[in-house]
């Protein structure tokens, strides 16, 4: 790396870390925004379903973020919640009642008004689901009870228990507002993008399933987030999403001038992108870090000393320096340093092979003749499936396996088909170890990750899997419930810190790095913005002369 590059990368890292990705942050010196043009955007995977709560999947979110608006806007820099479709709001003291004042004059692209009734309908579905239409409950909404339309511009939501995360929840992609006609469709038909009617700055023009999606700007759009500089319709005339699965083709096409903007740039490609004065964008996902989690229901990892040994045997720094770049900071907690409620517990995560060995010895796992640790005739052989959406996950796991191997612990990395992976992943006996991450700029994200009724990464009894024999951690679950229902912000953050300590003390997870979403854009692409967890927003984007 040349010094110039190093400096650039450092700057970028700082920018990312401090959440400086503002609309127009890179527009400096490029003159006034130019109107018109179509942005060619290369996406790695086809979208699966555009039911807004399914927007957590990046390809889905990348589209939903352009065609839907949210009640509120989370400022990616300050992470403060700002007005958008809701002009103002009030929350009662124990966070069980939320009242939103809806901005007048907003319409869906089919012409129907986006008023209080429409918002209520959206949240009734997101909060309660619709069994008949197979629409599931949104993971960002907790304890939802009902809605109430006070007048055409006022809507009120009631919660069974305090739901302090709800306000932030209204700003995420999963809470994009869609027209009644869209909500009336059964879940499986929501794969068809042309049926998704939102109120956003772009509308779906045409779609070739699995290959291409064309968005066009909505001329009458005049209800962007109130505090943005840019108001009115989008600068671009349209966006063309092209599914390009091959990493090398995406990056090559960008650098050859055939595309303007691409998602999923691997760390090893960053150098050549920057060498040609192209731009790497690596917004943080601000959620749970890229980690390796254990399923303590499996007797091999039921002992906290074994888990802790493996935590200390994992050299996150080596992984980051070998495989990644400055855009991928080494983890200092189970959540990103840019996430709300973050607590620096890097001291507990230190790489310490000697300690690891001692812990394993103490737990009764001794090195056998073949170099593997064993106890009661069983060898310490663990299995994990690679996670395809995570950057270089196969390589990451192989490095972890190498590191653990030095202690006499074997980690088998599997690259199964989706069916086997999902079935085996539900069974702690088959997959005692699993890579995990999730992004959302609210402490609720920790609950999303660990709570048995949500993602249940630890596989607790009564959670996602019926294969679990006995493991359940009531203390953890209690903390998580408290985290999502504590209305007081400071107290919530304190609980969040407690959870982070607890998870690492129990060594349920080995955090490795803070995962960004890596994009790359041509130099003439200006005004790229990202929502709080790294989905691009092309509302303010424009193409300079080139």
């Amino acid at each position, binding site marked *: 790396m040349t010094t110039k590059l190093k400096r650039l990368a450092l700057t970028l890292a700082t920018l990312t870390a401090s959440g400086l990705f503002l609309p127009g942050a890179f527009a400096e010196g490029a003159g006034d925004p130019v109107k018109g043009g179509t942005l*060619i955007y*290369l996406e790695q995977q*086809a979208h*699966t*379903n555009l039911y807004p*709560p*399914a*927007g*957590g*999947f990046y390809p889905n979110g990348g589209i939903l973020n352009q065609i839907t608006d949210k009640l509120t806007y989370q400022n990616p820099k300050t992470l403060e919640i700002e007005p958008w479709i809701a002009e103002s709001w009030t929350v009662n003291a124990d966070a069980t009642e939320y009242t939103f004042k809806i901005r007048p004059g907003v319409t869906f692209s089919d012409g129907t008004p986006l008023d209080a009734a429409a918002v209520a309908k959206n949240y009734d579905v997101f909060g309660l*689901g619709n*069994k008949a239409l*197979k629409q*599931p*409950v*949104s*993971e960002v909404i907790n304890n939802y009870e009902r809605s109430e339309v006070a007048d055409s511009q006022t809507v009120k939501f009631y919660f069974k228990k305090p739901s302090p995360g709800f306000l932030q929840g209204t700003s995420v992609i999963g809470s994009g507002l869609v027209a009644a006609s869209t909500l009336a469709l059964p*879940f*499986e*038909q*929501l*794969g*068809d993008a042309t049926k998704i009617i939102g109120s956003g700055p772009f509308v779906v023009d045409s779609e*070739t*399933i*699995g*290959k*291409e999606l064309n968005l066009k700007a909505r001329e009458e759009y005049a209800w962007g987030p109130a505090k943005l500089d840019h108001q009115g319709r989008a600068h671009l005339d349209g966006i*063309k999403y*092209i*599914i*390009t*699965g*091959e990493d*090398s*083709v995406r990056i*090559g*096409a960008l*650098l*050859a*001038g*055939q*595309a303007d903007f691409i998602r999923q740039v691997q760390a090893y490609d960053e150098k050549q992108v920057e060498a040609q004065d192209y731009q790497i964008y690596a917004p943080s996902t601000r959620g749970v870090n890229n980690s390796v989690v254990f399923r303590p229901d499996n007797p091999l990892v039921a002992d906290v000393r074994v888990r802790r040994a493996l935590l200390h045997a994992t050299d996150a720094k080596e992984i980051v320096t070998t495989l990644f770049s400055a855009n991928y900071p080494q983890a200092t907690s189970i959540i990103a340093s840019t996430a709300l409620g973050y607590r620096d517990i890097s001291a507990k995560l230190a790489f310490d092979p000697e300690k690891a060995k001692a812990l394993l010895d103490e737990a009764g796992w001794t090195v056998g003749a073949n170099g593997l640790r064993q106890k009661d005739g069983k060898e310490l052989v663990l299995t994990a499936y690679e996670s395809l959406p995570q950057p270089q996950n196969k390589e990451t796991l192989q490095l972890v396996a190498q590191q653990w191997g030095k202690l006499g612990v074997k980690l088998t990395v599997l690259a199964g*088909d*989706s*069916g*086997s992976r*999902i*079935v*085996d992943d*539900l069974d702690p006996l088959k997959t005692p170890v699993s890579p995990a991450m*999730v992004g959302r700029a609210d402490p609720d994200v920790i609950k*999303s990750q660990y709570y048995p*009724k*949500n*993602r249940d990464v630890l596989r607790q009894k009564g*959670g*996602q*899997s*019926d294969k679990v024999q006995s493991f359940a951690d009531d203390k953890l679950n209690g903390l998580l419930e408290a985290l999502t229902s504590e209305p007081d912000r400071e107290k919530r953050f304190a609980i969040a810190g407690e959870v982070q300590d607890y998870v690492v003390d129990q060594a349920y997870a080995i955090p490795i790095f803070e995962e960004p979403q890596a994009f790359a854009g041509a130099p003439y692409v200006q005004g790229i913005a990202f929502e709080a967890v790294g989905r691009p927003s092309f509302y303010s984007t424009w193409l300079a002369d080139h």
Partner: protein
Amino acid sequence: MSGYLLNRLGQALFVLWAAFTISFVLLQAMPGDAILIKFQNPELGLNPQQIAEIRASYAADSAIWVQYIQTIGRFLTGNFGYSVQVGVPVSTMLAAHLPATLKLASLGFLLAAVLAVVIAFLSSLTPFAWLRGAIQSVPSLFISIPTFWLGIMLIQIFSFRLKLVPVINPGPWQELILPVITLAVPISAPLAQVLVRNIDDVLTRPFVAVARAKGATRHWVLLRHVAKNALLPTLTIAGVLFGELIAGAVVTETVFGLNGIGGLTGRAVGSQDAAVLQAIVVLSALAFVTINLIVDLLFPVLDPRLRTKAGATA
């Protein structure tokens, strides 16, 4: 003749049914299913009960033989069902994906045939043994290259380095140039090998010597006597090549991001989208039996020996 046709149709129906059944059994036996793959997604946060309900709503919880009967019934009425993964009717998907594959496969096959003919004829026309050896090694080289690797290399060289053909957002014919080459190269190899062998074989037949004795030049003999005789038996491998064409299409479409049946197959296998896969199997089995039937019916048209029965005596 009509009896023959009926017999062939019966066989074709059997092949269709058996292909359907085998694929049904295979799909049922796979771990997990489309519903699990789609809905056991942490983003959706569905609990096992909800997933069970969804499974019930797809009628995917009934006994296997009931599903089998139902699926056959649906297929017979032309209803291929719904894709669980994408959420659109399978027939819509097929209609959207078929044209690209048909274009790719037919052009790929055409180019492969042209390549094969050129290789075969060049090798028999060339007067130098070393050059002939070199030309005849080309098919071996062609089948030694992994298709996906060839595709990626072509993109790197012709699109990204030389900037001759765009792969992103190309024109309707531009987008086919590199994929067609990629597909044609491995297909042309066996064709060329068979053709070279046939030509060499035909060249040893006495009628070639007779034609030469008439004063015909090598070119004349090759074009007017050898060509047709050598090409005819090549038709018989059409059925086998069809399978290779499909396999090639899966890889080619995946590399180039083309929106065809091949890419669809790859994705559908990944998500175990049973309805889609069943439809593809039936479709490809249908194409297979049709191609073989056409080849068999075409033979008598092209080869006079099969047209009429043994004629005069003495």
